[in-house]
């Protein structure tokens, strides 16, 4: 799952063959499909990688595929390629979240650069998502009281105020505070705040 893979969908067999050879030559794993549906059927969201997608193909066009992937919440970065001068399609593709848009004949530097960027993006997304999951698990481990204390601590309230607010003794507040710091594996208020930020982005 973590070994990055490049998915390539184009209806022209020569283009598929040539491009995959090129991408292989930089040591990346390529899987080709002559039809988007075949890709959709084979795709596993846990797989780290990116998708190179021809925008105009008989029967189904690349933007529709992007729409399907977006609807399913798939985060795989898409690099569109086209043999037509599809300027309007280009802007639509980017608006819908495309990673890049390249015209044929494809410049190798542009292609490989896009691929790298896309894969990096995907890796950090997966990392972040598992990170987020880890943090969320830790937070779920807290008791109700600990969570209440935490939310007031990150706001910057001192223990005295917290104890007044929650109607418990300062000693109890200190106990909760120590416990939640330990459970969340943070050593300082700054770390706690950062952790909070990670899971609840602005």
């Amino acid at each position, binding site marked *: 799952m973590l070994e990055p893979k490049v998915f390539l969908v184009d209806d022209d067999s*020569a283009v598929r*063959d*040539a491009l995959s*050879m*090129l991408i292989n*030559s930089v040591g990346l794993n390529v899987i080709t499909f002559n039809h988007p549906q075949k890709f959709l059927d084979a795709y596993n969201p846990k797989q780290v990688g990116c998708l190179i997608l021809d925008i105009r193909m*008989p029967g189904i066009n690349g933007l529709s595929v992007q729409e399907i992937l977006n609807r399913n919440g798939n985060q795989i970065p898409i690099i569109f390629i086209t043999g037509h001068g599809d300027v309007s399609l280009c802007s639509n593709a980017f608006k819908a979240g495309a990673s890049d848009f390249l015209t*044929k*004949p494809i410049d*190798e530097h542009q292609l490989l650069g896009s691929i790298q960027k896309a894969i990096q993006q995907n890796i950090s997304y997966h990392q972040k998502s598992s990170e987020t999951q880890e943090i969320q698990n830790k937070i779920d481990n807290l008791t109700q009281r600990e969570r209440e204390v935490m939310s007031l601590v990150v706001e910057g309230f001192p223990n005295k105020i917290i104890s007044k607010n929650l109607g418990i003794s300062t000693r109890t507040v200190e106990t909760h505070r120590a416990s939640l710091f330990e459970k969340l594996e943070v050593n300082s208020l700054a770390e706690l705040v950062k952790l909070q930020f990670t899971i609840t982005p602005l």
Partner: protein
Amino acid sequence: MQKLKGVRYLDLNIWIILAIWLVIAAVALVVQISSEINQQRDNFEKQSQTIFQLIQQRIDQNETVISGLDALFNTFPNLKFDDIRSYAREMLALYPHIYTIELQPRVELSKVSNFENIISAKLNFPYTIKDFEFGGARHWHPAPARPFYYPITFMEPPIEKASPVFGLDVYADSKFHEAMAKTISTGKAATSLPFDLVENGRGYLIFEAIFSATKPVSKNKPIIKQVKQVVSILIDADKFLSKEDMPYKNLSIHLYNREFNRNNANGNIIRVESSSTPTFFAGLLPVFTFSRPIKSKSQPFEFETQRKLGWEIIHIPSTIFVLLASLTITALIVIIINQRRIARESVNSAANLLLIEKERSLIRETFEKQRRQHEAELAHVARLSTMGEMASGIAHELNQPLTAILSYNQACIRMFQEDQVDKDKILQAMKSSAAQSKRASQIIQQLRNFVSKKGNPLQTIELNQIVLDVLILVENELREQQIKVKTDLDKSNSLVTANRVQLEQVVLNLVLNAMEAMKDTLAEHKQLFIVTRADNNVISLSFQDHGQGIPAENIDQLFNPFFTTKSNGMGLGLTISQTIIEAYGGRISAKNYSDGSIFMFTLPIATV
């Protein structure tokens, strides 16, 4: 909706509602009345039984008294009047329905005057044996000579009004003769026929003969009994039942002597008619009857009661309840019927709404589809009808091999720089790259041919090749529209003398028309079948599509200038094609077949 409901309740249904209520009420009332009738029947039976027993009791009492008197006289043959009187008074006190107790001694003719004297002295007034003439004069007169008489000598109580009867020969009186004779001969009590009493009312006499035993002359001869006197009690039948015994005013009671027919008023002992007012519906109701014979040896009576039902069978509170209950039930039924009708209607209207909705959405869908098709058609036509679009198509076509060539080469460069050089892979890449270059050059060639401005030189050309060239040119479009192309090109000969470009124009036009014809065909049916045939001196080329076919009215106009079925076409394609073909000595035609249309043209084979 409220208003609508109201209308529903109040229109033609009001009569049906009324009818339903009437039916239910009628049924309920019938049930109620039937049970009431049964109740009344039971009451009637009980009452009748009670009264019967009462009368039976009286009858028995009568028998007791008469046998008591019989026993008294047999025990004390020479009882004095005063003693008899005191006994009688006791009896009379006990039994109010016994009117009088009388004595009728037997008087032989020979002893009459003597007898009369003795009795006159006893009673202190002139006493004669007499008869009463009922018919005619209605008066007393002395009895004529008869063998014997049974005159009344004693009466207790001595009723003033009845004093004239003293001396009446009861035996001779037509009313009493039969009973007297019976008791004299049988020695048992006998009842007279009923008659009207002097003081109103109905009554009858019970006679019992008292015998004196004559001592037998000799031991062997039987004892001859001889009647000494007849004792009688007069029964006032009206006193059988007191007012307290008779609270039932709707009961009619009939006690009569069995020797008479029930309808014969002469036999009536008690005849009490019901005092309740008859009702108009009495005829519909059952009449209760009770009939039983009185058990008595001396008094052969028949007891009957009758009851005609009247208003009492209708119990007002129950009836009101029944009417209200049936009204409620009717209301419920009406509501249920209405609910079901409304439900049915709302289902109907819901179904209708659904149907209308379905229709609407169907129309919308069809419209949408048509619009999209139209757009696609427009787009398609716009793309194909201009040279610019054709060029764009060609440009894209060129781009594919170019992309491949570039990537192959760049891959090779990288692969060469690896530590471990994969020679086979590089070789493969370079071969593919070269092939793609050839592909590209072919396309260029077609393009050149297509846009050639070098006039129209005649060439000897292969028709088959032209077909292939044109197919490459529209490769992209064919693929986009998912049209499968099948070719059957006669390899024996396809040489013609014509201008290449022009022929390509014709072939292209026909191919484009075929594609246009199949734009609505299902993808799996989209097939273009191209056939060339060399036959004698002529080569024919046909394009068979699986499209919508040519409408009958258009077939004749197909090749006319400016005739087009496309919204965005000039209508010159086929006209120009025809001009070109005919210029080279050929013929072009079109026809329909079962699954689409076939366009074909012929050209003379080139003579080398």
